Every structure is written in structure tokens, then in C-alpha cells.
């Protein structure tokens, strides 16, 4: 507490000292003659422009090298590679533009600083020049758009026929997963069926739903396409899986989708990164409340055999969590109510 106050006092004192010094320079300037002072400050500032340019560029390249290992996230999906290569192409073009324009700006600022006998050039326009620097960016951007959209339509296109399906539902502040059981098909779910016990509102009247299971961790088969059916039940969330370059909002009332092909198993990734605890993580990427930052899910990528072994140990959600509990009664009640409501509706429309 006292240290904080002291620190703040020190800062204020420091500001006042700087202020006093700056005021003094003003008086000195008057004594020495304004013009002379002006010329000198022009000289200093113009030099600082070049210093800034050189030091800034050096810091940039140094920091990229320094953070490279953290910043380049190994992409572990097929389309992730496409995105990474797009990134590199974009970086190439924008990098060249960045370096050239920054150099020009700061170099000119230094080169054409005010001196006693310099005359500025009256040069209001040059149509030809302006045409070129319209056409060249336009061509570069067209290239980027073409590459980008080609990949975009591939990524957002229909999933391959042999895709596995996983349903992922966001709620404050966790993810709920649902897998189709042995029949390979997800049963219906319906908002009205949602209770504390039946978190995603599975319709147990649908026979396909009886073997669905709801594990706490996502398992995926390496090199096998998987389709995520994405839902939310309270506010908007977002399924973000950085290593797979996956990101898609989860919106209440709407089911969104994203399919991808994981290419590296968790085991392989542990070896690659030298981190024995490496885990693929799902992060929520859309602000969903004050617990947003803790909304984590985890993923295991494994071979088909390992995956099959895992699924065979999973108990159906119905059998393990619903059957014979009060939840089942509750479900039956809701289901009856819905049926009555629908019947009533059908009647009124008949008359």
C-alpha cells in the first residue's frame, strides 16, 4: 500500500521534472533565437526518424526470431496446411509492401528535413504514377482473393461421405459432447427436452438416441474426416481448436458445422513437441460471460484401433444416466405434454 503510494508519487515527481526541463528549453530557445532552435530540433527529429526505422526493423526481425517457436503452431489438419500456406503468401506480399513503404516514409522524412536553403518541390500530382499504384495493389489483392476463395469453398464445402460425426454443445462454461453409438447415427434432440440431467435435450423416443454416449473428452481418428455439429444452449460460444485451424460459433437456436481431417495423433505430437503432456485443447473464442476464459475442452487424436477400443468402453448416456432415474420420468412428462400440445394444434388446424 505505502509502496504503491510512493511509486505513484515518484511518477508524478518525474513528470514534473520533465515538465520543468521542457519549460527551460523554451526559455533557452528564446535566448538563442527561435530559428536556430527550430533548425536544431528539425535536425534531431529527422535523425530520430532514421534511428526509429533502423532500430524498429531490427527489433522486428529479432522478435520474430525470438518468438518463432511459440508463434508457429504446428498445424495438425489437412486444411490447416492450406491456411498456413495462404498465410505465407499473404505475408510475402504484405511484407514487401510494409518494408518498402516504411523505409520510404522514414527515409524521406530524414532526407527532406527543413534546412535553410532547401526548397520544396511543387509537385501536386502525377496521374501515371497514381494509376500504377492503383493497378499493382489491385492485382496483388485479386491474386489473394482468388487463392483465398478457392480454399474457403473447399473448407466450407460438404463433408466427405465417410466422416465421423460429433455433436458439441456450448453452455456457460463448458462443452458437452455427444457421439453416435454403435448405430453410427445421432438421435434427435430437441430444446424442450433440455433439463439439468439431459443437458443437450436428447429425444429418447428416437431409437437412434438410445446408444448415444456423452464422453468428457473428444476422441478423433487420425486421417479420418470428422464433422462437428455445433450448438449452444444459452449464449453464443465458439469452438476454437488452434492446432486444427478450426473456429466456428455456437449459436443458440442454430446448428452450425465444421469438418476437418486431423493428421497428427496426440502421441506423435508429444514426440514432435518434446512435451510429454501435450494435449489438443478446445477454447471458447466468443465472449460468453465472466467464466469465458476457463471454458476448455480436450481432444485425443488416435489410430482407428485405439479409437474403437475407446468407443467400446463408453456407456450409452441413456443407460448410464437416465434409465430408471427421476430424469426418465421427467422426460416422459415433457414428452407427453409436447404430444398433447401437438395434438391440440393439429386439431385446431383441422377445423
Amino acid at each position: 500500500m505505502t509502496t504503491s503510494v510512493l511509486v505513484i508519487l515518484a511518477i508524478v515527481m518525474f513528470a514534473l521534472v520533465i515538465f520543468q526541463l521542457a519549460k527551460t528549453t523554451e526559455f533557452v530557445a528564446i535566448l538563442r533565437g527561435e530559428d536556430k532552435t527550430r533548425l536544431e530540433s528539425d535536425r534531431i527529429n529527422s535523425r530520430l526518424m532514421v534511428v526509429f526505422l533502423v532500430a524498429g526493423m531490427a527489433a522486428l526481425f529479432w522478435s520474430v526470431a525470438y518468438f518463432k517457436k511459440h508463434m508457429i503452431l504446428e498445424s495438425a489438419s489437412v486444411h490447416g496446411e492450406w491456411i498456413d500456406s495462404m498465410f505465407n503468401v499473404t505475408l510475402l506480399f504484405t511484407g514487401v509492401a510494409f518494408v518498402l513503404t516504411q523505409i520510404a516514409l522514414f527515409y524521406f522524412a530524414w532526407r527532406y528535413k527543413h534546412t535553410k536553403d532547401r526548397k520544396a518541390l511543387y509537385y501536386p500530382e502525377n496521374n501515371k504514377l497514381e494509376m500504377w499504384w492503383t493497378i499493382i495493389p489491385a492485382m496483388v489483392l485479386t491474386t489473394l482473393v482468388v487463392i483465398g476463395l478457392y480454399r474457403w469453398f473447399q473448407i466450407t464445402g460438404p463433408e466427405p461421405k465417410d466422416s465421423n460425426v460429433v455433436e458439441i454443445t456450448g453452455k456457460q462454461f463448458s462443452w458437452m459432447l455427444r457421439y453416435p453409438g454403435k448405430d453410427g447415427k445421432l438421435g434427435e434432440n430437441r430444446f424442450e427436452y433440455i433439463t439439468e440431467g439431459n443437458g443437450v435435450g436428447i429425444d429418447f423416443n428416437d431409437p437412434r438416441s438410445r446408444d448415444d454416449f456423452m464422453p468428457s473428452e473428444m476422441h478423433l481418428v487420425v486421417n479420418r474426416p470428422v464433422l462437428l455439429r455445433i450448438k449452444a444452449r444459452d449464449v453464443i460460444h465458439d469452438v476454437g481448436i488452434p492446432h486444427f485451424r478450426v473456429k466456428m460459433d455456437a449459436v443458440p437456436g442454430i446448428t452450425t458445422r465444421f469438418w476437418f481431417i486431423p493428421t497428427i495423433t496426440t502421441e506423435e505430437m508429444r514426440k514432435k513437441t518434446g512435451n510429454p503432456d501435450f494435449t489438443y485443447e478446445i477454447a471458447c473464442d466468443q465472449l460468453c460471460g465472466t467464466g469465458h476464459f476457463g471454458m476448455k475442452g480436450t481432444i485425443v487424436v488416435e489410430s482407428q484401433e485405439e479409437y474403437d477400443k475407446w468407443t467400446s468402453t463408453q456407456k450409452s448416456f441413456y443407460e448410464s444416466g437416465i434409465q430408471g432415474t427421476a430424469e426418465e420420468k421427467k422426460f416422459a412428462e415433457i414428452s407427453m405434454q409436447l404430444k398433447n400440445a401437438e395434438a391440440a394444434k393439429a386439431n385446431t388446424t383441422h377445423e
Partner: protein
Amino acid sequence: MSDPVINPPLNPVYTGDTTHRQDSTGEIHDHGHHEHHKDNFITKYIFSQDHKMIAKQFLITGMFWALVGGMLSVIFRVQLGFPNQAFPILETIFGKWAPGGIISPDFYYMLITMHGTILVFFVLTAGLSGTFANLLIPLQIGARDMASPFLNMLSYWFFFMASVVMLASFFLPQGASDVGWTAYPPLSAVHEASPGSGAGMDFWLIGMALFIFSSLLGGLNYITTVLNLRTKGMSMSKMPLTIWALLITAVLGLLSFPVLLGAAILLIFDRTIGTSFYLDNIFINGHALPNDGGNAILYQHLFWFLGHPEVYIVILPAFGLVSEVLATNARKPIFGYRAMILSLLAIAIIAFVVWAHHMFVTGLNPFVASVFVFLTLLVAVPSAIKVFNWIATVWQGNIKFAPAMLFAIGFVSMFISGGLTGIFLGNSALDIELHDTYFVVAHFHIVMGISAFFGMFAGVYHWFPKMYGRLMNNTLGYIHFWVTMVGAYMIFWPMHYMGLAGVPRRYYSFDAFQSFNMFGGLNEFITMAAMLVFFAQLLFLINFFYSIFYGRKLTNENPWQSNTLEWTTPIKTGHGNWPGDLPTVYRWPYDYSKNGDEYIPQTTPLREGETGGH
């Protein structure tokens, strides 16, 4: 440049301290609101209708908000830079919001939400446009005041009321809004979704509605004034780029803010009277809500239909100020005046058809998204033209490094850095990786936050003598610039690296994720840099307020030897601006270093054989 001269409908003659206006036929009319000689304290400083005073009111209120908004960011940066470290002083000041000296998540989200809202709307929209549109439009087009000084005054007071409401929301028991400056429903619609989604959100919505009224009243006035009150000879093609930029900004605001108002009203309905515009299938806190059939994404379309033009509402005035400052201090005409205007127009038009680039991963139809990709990258072309033209303006100049000039050069550098990252984000496939990561945070802080601030600083340093008849201290200005320039890059540049690693924005802590927790040292560095930059702004504030009262007095009415009309008014500019007749304009504002004259004011008649443009 051969546009016909549009004659102003009024050609007022200012006759000392009388209260008369004269129309073009020479008749004298009484105008009650020109009773400036009876000014008392209240009409002069509080309910003033003088555009110059209103400009100062906007500026100083904006500075107050910048201080508050900046302070909020320093506080939440403490949490990001030094997570889990206790600072007892925080508990002393904030009590239950920082138990044990550690900022709570509720407080953190409140801070970032209000930081965004305050800086985007209250500082960079009201503070920036409000100040310079009010100050410069009448002065640079040669008018006595705004078309409607009364509406103008109302515009400020609506802004003031909006400010009071926003400020009050901090003191609610549950705190201010904490759902992000974009306020997406259902989070912002359902009271129980978040502590700040209750009364805090009500205050936020009311505050924003008042703010929108303010900005509409202001905008209408700016447009009318520019179109109708230009002095003799001031054709559209002789207007300084500041005026062009402010005019286009006002049009953007007028067309887009009503849509935000609509979005806000629907949100208010959903919150209060049980409608379901944005709500469907919501199960929260163990019970289902009755709302049915709405669409949460609808809000995002409406919000970004304003939100994207809004970012240009923020940056266009800065474009104008910077163009003016660069030309004046490089002692050179702005390069490609016509291209500068056309690119402003192009940017403004395209700004209305790119909004969905904020929504690529909302489940938007991929084909629709692809159209927005194309249009988004299209906007980079006029942006590039502007950058090249600014650089060409500096080339072969005779550059005087006034503090305003430093900030103008810094602006161009920042705008390049931040604009280029937009090209990554605008490409939907790449945006899958980058959306809602720190890469976006880096992008918009550099291209909008810092750039617009630099434009504003350039404006304040440049026009301070016009506003207060005194000079600011140059040395402090230099220190202010260099610390801010270096510091701002130190804060925001490394955020690109975090974004590439996938680190999400709006995270209170990264402890839970092994993918994101390796940037501890960098976060600490960024926090220190943020404190340094905040400190440099204190120097600016000291300089500003000290100079208002004790700065060196201006001895020359045109301290920067500039061509534009505001510098033809007396140092102590009264209500009505020009003591005698309004000035007549003969040439464009950028005759610098022409035919051996370092500068030729717009009021200098053409010489024989000279053309009015260039």
C-alpha cells in the same frame, strides 16, 4: 479544377458587435443568437452556441474520457501482465472488485467492455469528430458559425448526458456492462447471463441511444454547413481535405448510426417486454426461457452494419487532419488532391458493404461470405492509394518537424502497419485461424486506435494556437511523440505473435490452457509498455492545460504559415470569426512552394496567367 462556384445562400457581413446578418441582396436580418456581446459565463462557457467553444467542450470531455478509458486499460493490463499477483492498493481503491488485491473476472470483463465503448465512441468518435468538425468546418469554409448553432449545442449536451449515464453505470451495485463493446445477445439480452447484463446493460443502452442522438444532430449540422455556408469562391473543389473528410464522415454517421439505434431498440425490447428478436431456444441457470423464434445473428448484422462504417467514422477525420498537417509542414501540396478525395469517397461507399467480414465464422452462408471477402479486400486499394500519396507528399519536401508533423508521420506508419494486417483478416479462410485472437486486437488497435489518436494529436498540436491563442511546449510534444510512438508499437506489435499462436482475445487468464500460457513474459512486457505510454499521455495533458493558461502567447495569427482560411482570423477569434467581411477564396488550399512563394493563402487573388486549381 473547374467546378462552378456554389454561392452560399447567405453572404453575411460581420459588422463589429451588432447582431445582424446580411443576405446576398444586402438586406439586414436580425438573428437573435448572435448576441455575443451579452455573453455571460453561462452562455459563453456552458450553453455556448459558438462552434469554437463547442469544439473545446467536445475536446475536453473527450480528453476526460480518454484518461478514464486509458486508465481502465492499465488496470486490466495489470491482471494480464501480473496474473495472480496481489496489489493491495487495488483493493483499497476498488473494494469488492479486487478482493485481496487481485482483479476479479467480473471486474476484468467490465473494464474491457467499458474501455472499448469509451474509446471507440466517446473518445474517437465524439472527441475526434466533435472537436474538429466543430472547430474547422466554419473556420475553413469561411462561415460565421454552424448552420444551426442551437442544434450544435444540443449535440454536445446529448453527448454530455450520454457521458453522465455511462459514467454512472460504473457505480451500480452489479457494475457496468461486461458483455464486450459489441454487446452480442443473448449475452447482452438475458439478465442472468452475466452480472453486467442487468442494470449495467440498461445504462449502456440508454447511454448509447443518447450518444447516437448527439452524433446525428452533429452530423446533420456538419453536412448542412459544408453544403450551404461556404464563402464566396470556396467551391467544393477548393475545400481543404479536412473538410472533405469531415463531410464524408458525417454522411457515414448519418446513414449508419440509425441502424445501431434500431439494433439497440430491439435489444431493449427483448430485455424488457419479452419480445424475441434475437432470442431462441435458451436454457440458462437451470430453466428454459419462453423466448422463441428470434435470431442472435441478426443483431450482429445490424451491429456491424454500423460497426464497420463506424471504424471509418473514426479514421476519416484523422485522414483529413493528417493530410492537412503533412502538406503544411512539408511545405508541399498534398500529392494527388483529386485522388485523395476519390479514395475517401470510395472508402466510404465500400465501408457500407463489408460488414459481414466480422462474421465469417458465425455460420454465415459461405457464398455470401465470399462476396464480402471480395469487397473487403477491395477497400485496401483506395487505402493503399492514400498511403502512397502521403508518402509522395513528404518526398522532396522541406519538412518542419513541429509536434503535429511528427504525429502525422507516425500516423502514416501506424496506418500502414495496421492496414496490412486487414488483408489477412479479410480473407475468410485465413480469418478462421485469426478471428477473435490477439491478431485482431493488434490489427484494430494499430489501424484504428493508435492511428486515430495520432491524427487527433496532430490536430490538437496544430490547431491549439487557433483554439487558445497560445503555443504548446514543443519539447514536451517531442517527448510525448517519441515515447508514444515507440511504446505503442511495443504494446501492439507483439500481439500479432500471440494471435498467430491462437491466443484468444478477452481472456482474463491463460492459466487453464497449456496452448496459451507460454506468453507470460511477453504479457508482462506489454503491460510495462502500456504504463509507459499512459505516463507519456500525462505529459501531454500537463502540456495542454498548462499552455491554455501560461503557454507562450501567439504573436502572429498564422504560426504555421498555412494557406487555409482559419489562419486569416484574428488571434482572439470572436463569435462570428471574421471581424469584417467574410474572406473570398481564389485558389485551392495547397499552394505551397509554388513559383518561389513558400505559401499562398487561399485568399490571395490569382496572378495573371495562374489557374485556380494547380
